[in-house]
């Protein structure tokens, strides 16, 4: 029992972070993580792999999100972003950095769902390629090609001027 507690608990912050990219807002993401934890607690003894439960937990979370959205026939929508307002982006970050973070998150949100999922699991959540393949139930080769496409596409977006800069320009021009 306490073994379960010690193995799952440290993963909760990362699960919340990943959940935030799967659903619209913080409340929905936390509900999703709560469902995931309840399920993990009930099925703990039925885990196949008795190693690190990381990919097992992410897989439960991912499947819950996919099923939930399939059942309401809504598209999985990103997130972090719309709300990644004042408090979510660190308060210590200076203004310029804050804008940069908002910009990258907005652009991340525009990636196709399956590319974003791979990029986040690998580059942010530190899952190995094999673990990411397990979570998404796809071959490792597909993980690699989605990762490559995600990075290329995000890079193209990042090389374009930031969204907020464009907005500022428009505002300035429309002033007079």
């Amino acid at each position: 029992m306490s073994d379960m507690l010690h193995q799952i608990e440290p993963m909760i912050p990362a699960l919340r972070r990943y959940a935030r990219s799967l659903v619209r807002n913080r409340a929905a993401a936390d509900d999703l993580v709560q469902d995931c934890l309840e399920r993990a607690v009930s099925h703990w003894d039925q885990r196949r792999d008795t190693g690190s439960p990381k990919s097992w937990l992410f897989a439960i979370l991912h499947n819950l999100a996919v099923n939930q959205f399939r059942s309401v026939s809504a598209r999985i929508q990103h997130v972090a972003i719309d709300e990644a307002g004042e408090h979510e982006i660190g308060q210590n970050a200076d203004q310029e950095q804050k804008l940069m973070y908002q910009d990258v998150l907005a652009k991340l949100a525009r990636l196709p769902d399956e590319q974003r999922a791979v990029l986040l699991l690998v580059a942010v959540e530190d899952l190995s390629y094999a673990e990411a393949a397990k979570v998404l139930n796809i071959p490792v080769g597909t993980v690699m090609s989605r990762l490559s496409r995600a990075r290329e596409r995000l890079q193209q977006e990042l090389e374009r001027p930031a969204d907020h800069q464009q907005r500022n320009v428009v505002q300035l021009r429309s002033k007079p």
Partner: protein
Amino acid sequence: MSNRPISEDDLHAYVDHALEPERQAEVAAYLESHPDVAKRVASFSDQRSLLRSALAPIAEEPLPPQLNLSRIIESKRRRSSASSFRWAIAAMLMLAIGGISGWSIRGASEAPAGGLAALAQEASDSYHVYASDRTRPVELRDSNELVQWVSNRLRQPVKLPDLTKSGYRLMGGRVVPTAHGPAAMFMYDDDHGERLVVLTRPMTTDQNAPMAPHSGSDFAGFSWADGGMGYSVVGPGAAEQLKPLANEIRKQAQTI
């Protein structure tokens, strides 16, 4: 130094620090002589750290009480002990009712009592009671010990069906009591944690009976008897999914 060419996958693995040190060094050397590729790889690395910093604050937020794991575990435990208490009451009622009705129909219809219908009922009862048990669904997990135990109690060699090809792994089993003597119960589960139960015991009547689906039960199931031994398999889900498993078990049992 290996002469393997540097692939696109190597470049990503380089960015993600997922290469063996030796390969990491080879990619680094390659990048030194290929500035265009190096620029692209550097931009991926920047992207990676930018994403990590931008998303880090979410993981640093204090957890809301709904995500307190100790609380989740505690409430789960309370719910399951409440439900096992309900099971105990239900089991007592079933025994009482079974005792009374068993007595009243005694002699009325001797024949079907030990037959296939009884076996089917015993198998669903076992499924009901044991498959829902999260703490101790089976008594013995070791398959050798299990086979020896049930073979001794049933006074004949019992073979463990192997369902790995159908995606079910043996969890273990136990001897369960029936009105017709001891029976062997084996439990299996699949990757989704779905459990199924196989029950087998010597038959007093219906010593050879064709496979028949269970009727009037909450769970899907099939029972049959070959050469004096009865078999029954019960599981969640649809009967069509269970049928091939039942056929497989029957085939294996016939090759003892």
